[in-house]
């Protein structure tokens, strides 16, 4: 027992040391920005993360990263850590629009500006700014463009949509944007499959295959995110429906996000319409907002990225605004 006691005392002293010793805080010789995402599940977020880091460095900030793995509470703790590191600003992607509010309050208390990237927080008295693609609007115009093509081609359509995680607000907004348009066009479009992907490629692939089995005549397809493109391509190929525009059996197809896969699919003629979030613009907005707030300027609560819709026809003229094109160019020389 003596052994244990002694070891315990030693440990207790060491542990107490961690609590009591006033930390010699490192001199803040460099400006830092915290870039806090909730996941890096799709190319959009991965590229967004990279673009933000690059733009932060370009603006003279050292980026500090953190990923919360979809855990709002963990992110709250991460925000506390970043505040403790005395960062110049926080760019955050929260999972839940409401659960982030306490984190904003903490940042407010410490006087550190906070910008929400692509997902605005819910209404509250806490002060922060958000940069966001207008998901519902972009999806609306994307689907509208697809419907226009359908009307032009004539005939009736059986539609399928790949919905994201039902716990993710962006997924919900995009779904709503889809139905906003489709419900107006019930005369030619019947939705036969609502595929819940939970943002899980496995499930997306399996359930799209199943949906194509149940409804082999699906000829109108919208995905809530481009990151599911490989699975969609695979499923359509197996069903013999991966056809270019104009070919027999082509499925009218719209993507969302504007990643390199979308660019390639549009270029090759498999996709008809793509909703694009203007990632570069959003990153500039975010860094700019932080600098403005640090200077004491007032920044609106919501900085909207209107995004845009790109089609096979407009691809060549608009592709330079498309972040996926930049990635694609880098990869393909």
């Amino acid at each position, binding site marked *: 027992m003596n052994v244990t006691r002694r070891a315990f005392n030693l440990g207790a002293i060491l542990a107490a040391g961690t609590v009591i010793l006033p930390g010699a805080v490192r001199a803040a010789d460099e400006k830092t920005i915290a870039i806090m995402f909730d*996941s*890096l*599940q*799709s*190319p959009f977020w*991965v590229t967004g*993360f990279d673009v933000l880091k690059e733009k932060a460095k370009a603006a003279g900030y050292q980026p500090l990263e953190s990923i919360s793995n979809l855990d709002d509470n963990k992110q709250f703790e991460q925000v506390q850590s970043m505040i403790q590191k005395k960062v110049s600003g926080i760019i955050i992607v929260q999972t839940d629009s409401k659960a982030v509010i306490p984190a904003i309050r903490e940042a407010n208390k410490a006087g550190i500006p906070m910008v929400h990237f692509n997902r605005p927080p819910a209404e509250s008295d806490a002060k922060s700014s958000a940069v966001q693609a207008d998901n519902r609007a972009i999806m609306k115009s994307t689907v509208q463009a697809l419907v226009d093509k359908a009307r032009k081609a004539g005939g009736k359509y059986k539609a399928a949509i790949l*919905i994201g995680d*039902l716990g993710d607000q962006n997924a919900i907004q995009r779904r709503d944007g889809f139905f906003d348009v489709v419900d107006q066009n019930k005369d030619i479009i019947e939705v*036969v*499959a*609502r*595929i*819940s992907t939970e*943002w*899980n*490629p*496995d499930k*997306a*692939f*399996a*359930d799209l*295959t*199943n*949906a194509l*089995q*149940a*409804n082999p005549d699906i000829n109108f397809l919208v995905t809530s995110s481009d*990151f599911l493109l*490989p*699975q969609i*391509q*695979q499923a359509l*190929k*197996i069903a013999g429906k991966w056809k270019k525009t104009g070919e027999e059996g082509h499925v009218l197809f719209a993507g969302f996000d504007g990643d390199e896969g979308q660019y390639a699919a549009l270029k090759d003629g498999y996709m008809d319409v793509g909703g694009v979030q203007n990632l570069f613009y959003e990153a500039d907005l975010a860094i700019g907002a932080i600098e403005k707030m640090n200077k004491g300027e007032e920044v609106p609560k919501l900085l909207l990225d209107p995004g845009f819709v790109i089609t096979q026809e407009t691809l060549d003229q608009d592709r330079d605004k498309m972040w996926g094109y930049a990635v694609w160019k880098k990869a393909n020389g």
Partner: protein
Amino acid sequence: MQTSSTRASLAVLRSAPALLFVAVVVLFAILAPRFLEVQNFANILTQSANVAIVAVGMTFVLLLAGVDLSVGAAMYVCAAVAGLYFKDLPAPAAMALMTAIGALFGAINALFIVGLGIAAFIVTLATLFVGRGLALHLSQTKMVFAGDPVLAFGQGGFLGISYAVWTMAIVLLLALWVQQWTPYGRYLYAIGADREGARKAGIPVRRVVFATYVLCGTLAGLGGFVSFSQVAAASSGFGLQKEFPVIAAAVLGGTSLFGGRGGVLGSVFGAILIQTVQNGLVLLNANPYLYPLVISAIIFIAVLLDSQRTRILARLTRRQIRIEPGVEARRSTAT
């Protein structure tokens, strides 16, 4: 003491999983017109292939009263390496590569479990994190795309049956052979039932345990290959929490978490059952919010049936001391 009614209920209980499967199929067949098509069953099999293959390896581990939480991470590591560095390999070579990486992953688990005698739960929990970290590091958290030969594997088939199903069938047959016909397979059961007794009986327990974790890793690699060839790309969520459906498939198929009971056939069956429900719900165009509720309810029923079956079987096979007049001798029903 067996009356005809208890024997009838015993017969029902013995075939409970099959009956449940039939019930599910009939239900969906009534509700969803296209459910009964041959192509749909082919789809179900194709989609359950990756979980089924991993579940085969998991079954062997569970037979030893072990567990491997790291299968999902192993799948991701395999896919990341294959997709990043060996994109142009022909499909068979890619398959061999991924299974080899899986085997290596399993060997690392085995080293800690057998060599240092650490609980499998902790070891595989740790390698789960390390494995995912490694794969994320390699891929820089970006999506990793499968090469064209691998994609062709995912799309193609032979005699109208997808390669994924062929792979699953071959794995199942081989595993059944290993389980039923090789000394190794029989050792698994012996060790799972009584580890100390197995050691005393001269079974090379440590070697068998080691081999089993390697095998589980190997099949995780193979399952990863099949999954990779289907979903065509591995994002940071590839294989995430795959351990749960895999273990669930095995347990659903009647494999005990406490070792010595069950088998690979049931596990493959369990994987197919889960996928059948999933498929049926999509065909019904059901409210997506209901999916988890329905699936968990069906798993619950399956586990409930299994536990009741075990109980009743135990009661019915309890040792009899007296030969009561009017009751058949135990022997005649036991054979």
